[in-house]
């Protein structure tokens, strides 16, 4: 007997996320695309899971990252991997391009949005296909955008100025990495749900490379902190 929970009214709708991941920053550079996330999953305002890989490799030349509800991220990774495996089923060696994944995710997100039960995510699909760089953003509503640079979450507020001033679409991989590191430095200082350990991943003609996590450089031994200048009582 098939039990349709939607009809019985027991279907729950995602109204607010529980375990969440922070901002994602993605840029193109002269040889491919690069994505950066931090490695934190927060349980509300508690920094619970501090060593989480939030960038997934979907196929040889496509990677996926997202900010928002982490269980939805895990589910999306499964759904996208299913598509990649279909090449094995049909025996034709045809793998979806990064753009195919981006559009699929947009359709999936839109469908769930229409049922008022969204995937609570801002998604970034990044890839390199036939010599072309690809960066796609799919938001919680299923809006689909392709761009040269993408920021989600708080990075959209804090980091666009840094990206605008220090990055261009033909910079080198190292320059792009530096820009992303700088962005996460700022985020760690200003975003309450950010972490100072980040992970970078890039896709170029050779395929996807996900790097080991690294700690951003931060400086806390300012004189102002030591002397606690801000904490002096103000008296009239």
């Amino acid at each position: 007997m098939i039990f349709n929970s939607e009809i019985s009214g027991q279907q729950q709708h995602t109204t607010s996320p529980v375990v969440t991941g922070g901002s994602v920053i993605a840029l193109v550079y002269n040889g491919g695309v690069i994505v950066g996330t931090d490695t934190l999953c927060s349980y509300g305002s508690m920094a619970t899971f501090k060593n989480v890989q939030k960038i997934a490799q979907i196929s040889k030349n496509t990677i996926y990252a997202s900010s928002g509800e982490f269980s939805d991220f895990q589910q999306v990774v499964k759904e996208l991997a299913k598509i990649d495996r279909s090449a094995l089923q049909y025996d034709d060696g045809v793998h979806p391009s990064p753009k195919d994944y981006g559009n699929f995710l947009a359709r999936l997100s839109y469908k769930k949005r229409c049922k008022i039960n969204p995937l609570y995510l801002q998604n970034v699909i990044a890839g390199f296909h036939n010599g072309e760089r690809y960066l796609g953003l799919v938001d919680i509503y299923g809006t689909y955008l392709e761009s040269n640079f993408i920021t989600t979450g708080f990075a959209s507020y804090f980091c666009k100025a840094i990206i605008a001033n220090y990055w261009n679409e033909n910079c080198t991989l190292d320059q792009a990495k530096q820009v992303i590191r700088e962005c996460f430095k700022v985020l760690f200082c200003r975003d309450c749900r950010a972490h100072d350990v980040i992970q970078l991943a890039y896709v170029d003609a050779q395929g996807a490379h996900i790097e080991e996590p690294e700690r951003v450089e931060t400086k806390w031994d300012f004189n102002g902190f030591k002397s606690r200048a801000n904490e002096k009582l103000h008296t009239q």
Partner: protein
Amino acid sequence: MLKHLYDTDCVTWSPQGKLFQVEYAMEAVKQGSICLGLKSNENVVLCSLKRQPSELAGYQEKQFKIDDHMAIAIAGLTADARVLCKYMRTECLEYKYTYESHHPVGRLVFKVAEKSQHKTQSGAKRPYGVGLLVAGIDPNGVHLFETCPSGNYYEYKCQAIGSRSQAARTYFESWFHLFEKSTLEQLILHGLSAIKKAIMEDEELNEKNVEVGILGKNLKFTHLNAQELKDYITKLDTFSPNSQIQQE
């Protein structure tokens, strides 16, 4: 062999290991008028001979566009062909809606074959009585497939199906080594030459009874119009594959 003992339905094997209903369905394909396809590195061309049921009637179309990058030519029961055509078009549309890109050709042929096979393994169903030549272009390259009522499918460099198709296949066997590097025009002329081998003595090729469809890497599927057909049929008189060899 007492065929009639084993040919009532699809769920009965013959002692020789044959499914007669499926084989009879393949006969229906052989009764259809000829259609053929041939491909080069860049293009695929479909040619078919259209039948006119009577002088008062129009000519039966044999080629159908499935998507910008794919088309079929049919031989056999036109009604069955329409069912498969509708299925293929729907699949392509859904794929485009989801992925914003073209349905891989081999995969769609696989789906059609699966659908066809299903009809050969049921007591209450009959196989589709139509063979398709599927021409398509996808990231894997230029393709020409043949599907059968049996549910088998094959990829070809060039193939002809329908009545008197053996004459066209004989032409292909002599000249197919030239097709890979042929220009679109040469390919069309080869196709028309092959069809010419398959018509009856009292018939002749004209722009009314021949249908030519072309597809290329940067060329969406189109039919040649009446004037273009006339021009190509005229060029047939001076076309000789031998001259193509000398060029190379």
